[in-house]
Every structure is written in C-alpha cells, then in structure tokens.
C-alpha cells in the first residue's frame, strides 16, 4: 500500500487560491508588457521564464502538487524531461545539418509552389527570399 504523506482530503485555504489567481493575472500583464520592449534574444527567455513561473503556480496550488504524494510530481517532471529530450535531440539534427556539407543547411524550399501565382508585397520580394548560403537563423 502507499505510505504517502498526502492528506486525502486536504483543503487548501480559500485565500491561497485567490492569491494565486491574482498572481497569475499580474504575471500575464507583465509578460504582455515586456513583449512590447525589444530585448532581442532575451525576449523569448523572459517570456518562457514568466510562463514557467505561472505554470508552477498552477501546478503547485491549483493542481495540488505541493500537498500531494511526490509520485505525481515525478510523473509530471518525467513528462517534461522526455519532451525536452525529444525537442533537444531533434534540434541536434535540424540545427546542425550544414556542418559537413553546407548546402544541406539550405531551406528545403524557400518559396513554396502556392506562392507562384500570388501577387507579392514589395516587402516580401526582398533579399531574404533568395536561398542564403546559411539559412536565416
């Protein structure tokens, strides 16, 4: 049987739920506001960091993992770890194709067939539609 530390009917106080809800709304405002400031490469870092904090609040309090059997937290983290493995290892391939043969790093097809008959914006007909030697990273 389980020797768990969780209380089967543990009741989270009302004010914690409301406080977490408020925090989530504030963090949403923060992330939207920051997205209008140009931080270059940091924008995605900040956005994901804020999302991670929001996610943690939902998981720990709304989903009760702070008070529950550690096994559930392990299950959740295992999912995240394997997802990370999937994305990371796939990107070992997709980001690195041109190492030996640079032409393997080109866009598969920079201009798909569907655009052949479309009138294009002058903005679209720019130099970055030509296949660059290194792809537009």
């Amino acid at each position, binding site marked *: 049987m389980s020797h768990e530390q969780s209380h089967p009917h543990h009741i989270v106080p009302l004010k914690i739920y409301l406080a977490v809800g408020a925090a989530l709304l504030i963090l949403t405002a923060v992330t939207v506001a920051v997205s209008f400031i140009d931080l270059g490469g940091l924008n995605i870092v900040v956005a994901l960091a804020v999302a991670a904090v929001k996610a943690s609040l939902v998981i720990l309090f709304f989903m009760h993992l702070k008070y529950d059997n550690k096994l559930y937290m392990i299950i959740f983290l295992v999912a995240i770890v394997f997802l990370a493995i999937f994305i990371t290892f796939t990107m070992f391939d997709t980001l690195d194709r041109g190492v030996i043969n640079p032409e393997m790093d080109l866009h598969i097809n920079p201009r798909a067939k569907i655009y052949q008959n479309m009138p294009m914006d002058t903005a679209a007909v720019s130099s*970055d539609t030509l296949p660059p030697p290194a792809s537009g990273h």
Partner: protein
Amino acid sequence: MSHADSHAAHPKHLAHHFSDSVQQAESAKLGMWIFLLTEILLFGGLFCAYAVFRAWNHEMFYSAHKFLDVTLGSINTVVLITSSVTMALSIHAMQLGKKKQTLILLAITLLLAAVFLVVKYFEYSHKFHLGQLPGKYYTFTGVPGDNPHIFFSVYFAMTGLHGIHVLGGMGAIIWMMLRTAKNNFSPEYYTPLELTGLYWHLVDLIWIFLFPLLYLIG
C-alpha cells in the same frame, strides 16, 4: 473470508476490487496524472514542430506573429486563468459540502470556457477572411519572408488541438454538474471533480505556454 462483513460498511462509490476508499481515490488520481502525462507528450509534438520551424524561419515567424491579435489573446489568457480559479473553488466548495456553490462555480467555469471558444471563433474567422489559412489554402500576401503559411499552419494546429481539448473539458464539466446535482458527491467523495479539475488546469497550463510563444514572441 470477511467478504460478507465488509459489505455492510461498503460505501456506494467503492468498487469491488479496491480494499478501501483511500486506495481507490489514490489510484484514480494516479491514473489521471498518467493521462495528463500523455497529453503533455501529445502537445509536445506540436511544440517540437514549432521549435524546429521557428529556428529555421525566425524572421518570418516574427513578422507573421504580428498579425495575431495580442488583445484577444490576452483576454483569452485572463479568461482561462479565471476559469481555473473558479474550477479550483468549485472543488473547494464540495470539500466543504456546499453543493449549490459547487454548481454555480462549475457553471461559471463552463461559461468562461465558452467565452474562450467564442473569442477563438472571432480570431479564426478574421484569419479566414484575410486568407491566413494553413498550408495550401494560404492566400494572404502581407507577410514578408519565406513560406509564411508555415507559421499559420503551426498556429492553427496548436490552437486547434487546444480548442478541441477545451471543448472536451466543457463536456466533462457539464457531466460533473449533472452528477453534482444528483448528489453523487460529498466531502467524503468528490474524486471525479478533482480529476476534472486536474484536466482543466492542464488545458490552462498548455495555453500559458501557447500564448507567449505564438502571440508575444512569434
């Protein structure tokens, strides 16, 4: 052996192969968390596609994402977060035996979910109108960069799958409202409510990541 005796003190909701309510409730919760794990991996595939195509086309992604309405996206985020609060509160109410409050909070959660889908409907129909459609149906010309249809393909796949899960969640909430009304639940037994709550929070969780990646960063 003591089969006949144990039947005397046998709660209605306790299934025959479990030895007591605690074991049953813990098993249900464990099962639900494993199911959530499968949902994370399911959406994960789409996050991977997003990551790969964004790395290959990040200028195009940046230009294309500007055509997403941040206001509507933010409204939806607020709506979903609030619905998570009301969902948690509805379970809290049942833990205290307040059936009417539970029903009202479930109803509000359901309403907020519907609002989410209505907003999404407006977003989608605007895109259809402009021709910002996935794949071979794409006809919009205002996005600079190569193959802008890829961004919209990814956008529709991710938000579409999420929307289907919102719809499924609404079905589950309605079912929970019916069971609550029929007095199926009590402070001693509210496991299905808990499980529905877990599912709903996951739907919120996925949106917490979808929103910045699609609407704010691109």
